[in-house]
């Protein structure tokens, strides 16, 4: 049992479909209206059936008032890190501090290469991500003087000016599954953002992955609770309880509370493209989950 004690947060993972063009915008407005905390979009710049994720995030941020936003997760190989850092800071300033940076090392290398991106091995991509995170954090850090110099193997910045600073302390959430990425997350991440459907063996896999993150965090002199544990989930609302996240909202709440109490997951992001599911998730699942978790945490 590992509960890191983070407050619970509920979000939406909406497909950034290009047609109809306002599909994701309208669902994001619904997500805000029904009271979700967060709206996120996947980022596959090689996929023309999707809108460009950064453009969509910026547009949706402009059309909403309170909901937080993040890529889930942004594709580093096709996003220049120094430009990305300033873009994130800019959107954070425009939106009054509602932006977090979800980022991944890249996965679909054939598609990335076809777009003109650089093909990296899994190991190289981890190093590249670490370099990029260093650059991004340095560029955001206007408390230091002098230009940013990072002479990495994959990314170099040589005297770039710092700033603009984001409006709030933007968290970096990392999509990670394999040990080296999990270690990187433990060392550098503010959040860990895997997807349930990619977990080998379902939620049980979280235990070992948490352990790797925790050890890496401790080794880096950090508290394991410095890394928020998040999870993209998918499920089905139905009148009868059938299996994990297939059933009525009460069943979902029990399932999610169990994942929180057992594995410390505190942010649940539901993949849904219909207003009805978002509303049930926000108005019924979220409060019921919070209630169970609060009651159990009080006992502990």
């Amino acid at each position: 049992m590992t509960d890191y004690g983070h407050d619970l947060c509920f979000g939406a993972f909406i497909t950034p479909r290009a047609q109809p063009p306002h599909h994701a915008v309208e669902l994001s407005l619904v997500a805000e209206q029904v009271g979700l905390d967060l709206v996120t979009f996947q980022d596959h710049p090689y996929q023309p059936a999707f809108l460009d994720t950064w453009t969509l995030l910026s547009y949706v941020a402009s059309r909403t008032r309170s909901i937080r936003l993040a890529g889930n997760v942004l594709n580093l190989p096709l996003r220049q890190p120094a430009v990305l850092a300033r873009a994130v800071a800019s959107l954070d300033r425009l939106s009054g501090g509602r932006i977090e940076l979800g980022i991944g090392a890249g996965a679909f290398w054939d598609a990335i290469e076809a777009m003109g991106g650089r093909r990296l091995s899994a190991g190289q991509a981890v190093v590249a991500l670490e370099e990029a995170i260093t650059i991004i954090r340095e560029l955001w850090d206007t408390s230091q003087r002098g230009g940013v110099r990072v002479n990495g193997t994959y990314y170099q910045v040589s005297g770039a000016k710092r700033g603009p600073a984001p409006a709030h302390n933007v968290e970096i959430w990392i999509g990670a599954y394999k040990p080296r990425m999990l270690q990187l997350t433990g060392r550098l991440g503010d959040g860990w953002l895997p997807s349930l459907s990619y977990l080998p063996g379902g939620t049980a896999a979280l235990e070992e992955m948490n352990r790797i993150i925790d050890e890496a965090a401790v080794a880096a002199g950090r508290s394991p609770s410095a890394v928020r544990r998040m999870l993209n989930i998918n499920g089905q609302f139905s009148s009868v309880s059938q299996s994990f996240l297939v059933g009525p909202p009460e069943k979902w709440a029990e399932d999610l509370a169990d994942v929180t109490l057992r594995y410390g997951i505190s942010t649940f992001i539901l993949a849904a493209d219909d207003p009805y599911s978002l509303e049930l998730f926000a108005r019924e699942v979220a409060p019921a989950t919070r209630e169970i978790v609060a009651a159990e945490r009080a006992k502990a």
Partner: protein
Amino acid sequence: MHYGHPLEFGTFITPRSDSPESVVALARRSEELGYDLVTFQDHPYQPAHLDTWTLLSWVAGQTERIRIAANVHNIQLRDPTVLARSAASLDLLSGGRLSLGLGAGAYQMAVAAMGGRGLRAGQAVEALEEAIDIIRGILDTADSAPLSFHGTYYRVSRVQRGPVPAHDIPIWIGARQPRMLRLIGRKADGWLPSLPFLQPGDLTAGNAIIDEAAREAGRDPREIRRLVNIAGRFAPERGGFLEGPSVQWVEELLPLVVEHGVGTFILMSDDERTIEQFAREVAPALREAAERELAGAFLARPIRRASVRARRREGIDYDAIPESLDGAVIEPGDPSYARMRSTYFRGGSPGLVIQPGTTAEVATAVAFARAHRHVPLSIRSGGHGIRGRSTNDGGIVINLSRLRAIEVLDRATRRVRIEPGARWMDVAAALSPYGWALTSGDYGGVGVGGLATAGGIGFLGRKHGLTIDHLRAVEMVLADGAVVRASDDENPDLFWAVRGAGAGFGIVTSFEFEVPEVSNVGWAQLLFDASDIAGFLERWGAIVEASPRELTSFLITSPRRGQPTIAFVLAMVASDNPETIVRCLQPLVNIAPLYDQSAIIAPYATVMANAQSGDYYGRGEPITRSGLIEHITPEFAADAERLLRSGLIYFFQIRAVGGAVSDVPPDATAYANRSANFSVLALGAHRARLDAAWDQIQYHFNGLYLAFETDPRPERLAEAFPPPTLERLRRLKARYDPENLFRDSFDLNPEDASRPAPVETGS
């Protein structure tokens, strides 16, 4: 020197990162003041600025009308492939308000410090040219082949183009040097220098270089808009250039319009009073003065790029498209052409798609089509028609998708008005809150217009009849452009013809239905082992015929050689009483071993909500045969089994009709084959083979439903319309469409000698 571009005005606002609210406020103020355009410089190495792409996207969300552009992007720090997809995305989100301002990227050192390439000037021009080719390639969604580009600086390999932008995004380039100017002449849509950086004579020389390069590339120099960033100061007393009262500004800017062809002035200022004064005093006066000086010289519409014009089809006079249709036409070089050209079942290559937004625009489109009788004319509502007649090759498509209103006219009499471009799932959703439903087809993505002029064999058919049986009046545009109403009282002949043969008489722009009250319905989906095909068909047919009218069932099978035969039975029970539903469904469940089943009680709208909203990318020609049949006799079932086992058919459907459909006398509507209990449809892959096989079982049928039939032989028309109906239709055709304009869906006068011979169209 003048290029005929009507004057436009923009602002240029410093994207200060220390004060994002004031930047956005000035952008909104620009819109309020009537500016056409708001722009921001792009220096990604400059932390005193907001990221320009992010800001443009944000501003798009805060404005409604004003167009947006960078002035200009630093291409060295913007990957062209990602930028192109981002541009398409922002164009979609903003409703077609984006222009792309591009520059080769100055400040080599700063670019390199960011991790960019830091190219030297000459290299940067080459890289920009490559970037433009990639951006154009990604945005050229009219071309369906993947994009490959192997340049010195950029390389993309077989990437899919798109997303499809909302409009043809112009590319403007900021430049001073001859190499860049020649590039503009070859490839860009606009030249965007900053006046304060130009020397006297630069505009003349620059225009000359651009024009020459354009002509050498086979372009018309008027394709390229001349924009200029200007800076100045309003003062009560006259002073230096653009330093003085508004009248002085007008005097000084007018020669730029008249002598140098400048079409767009972009005011570089963050001072709200300057921005206001320019909008109120300079812009309108300058427009007026330019109109005076250049009376009649302004182009009514932009000259399209040569590469767009090159894709035009012969036989269509594109320059004659009425101005009132501007914004409503899509030609083969337009980005959204790929989304428009084909239907669900048929690949198309029309020469022009017109998307009218009003009945008057439909009439204008019909008039244009009338002047082009030598090319095909297709009418499209939803584009899902099985016959695929809503597109063509080289002709005109009138696409009614913008005419999609659904409104209740009178609640007491359940009278609703529906436009042809609405889709049946939207109709069902709109009627559902009232407890009403209108039978349609089996798919929610089907458009109203095609189905409601052909018949409409749907899931409530045995209880409520055909869709057309609920029609009370139409408004339509006839071949001569007249807008008429037809009902039992007005133009009753036409109203008769529209209900079953509407596509031969004009374009219905509005349908008035009296819709029935329909409670929630029972809805079952049953998956059967149909190894005994003939027995299965026969048992299903017998049960359906013996069932109460509440039940309407469709049967589908997609036989595959070497695999067990599975049949899918859909059944709707027009009742929310569980007992009635079970009583109706129970006999069906027992006709064969069940693989899977589901049954729910739900609104009709829930059942119809089975379509994605999306575009269709059909290829080739649909190959179908169809027929209406009284009973599923053992003989027919045996023949059907042989046919299904032949491998010639990949989709086979039988829909129950009869019931209320048969209550209507055959002569009441142009849809006359009302005695049948079933409608049969087969989709095959080979025209000749399917026809040969189907012709042998033809004797089982008694007429056909034209909307399902693609056999082009003339006998089919006679089967769709029995002799008295066809004779009356031909008499009416002579009255309402004597020149046979509406002949592409089905031709009521195939031997008409007055019909112009088809011309060969270029490819």
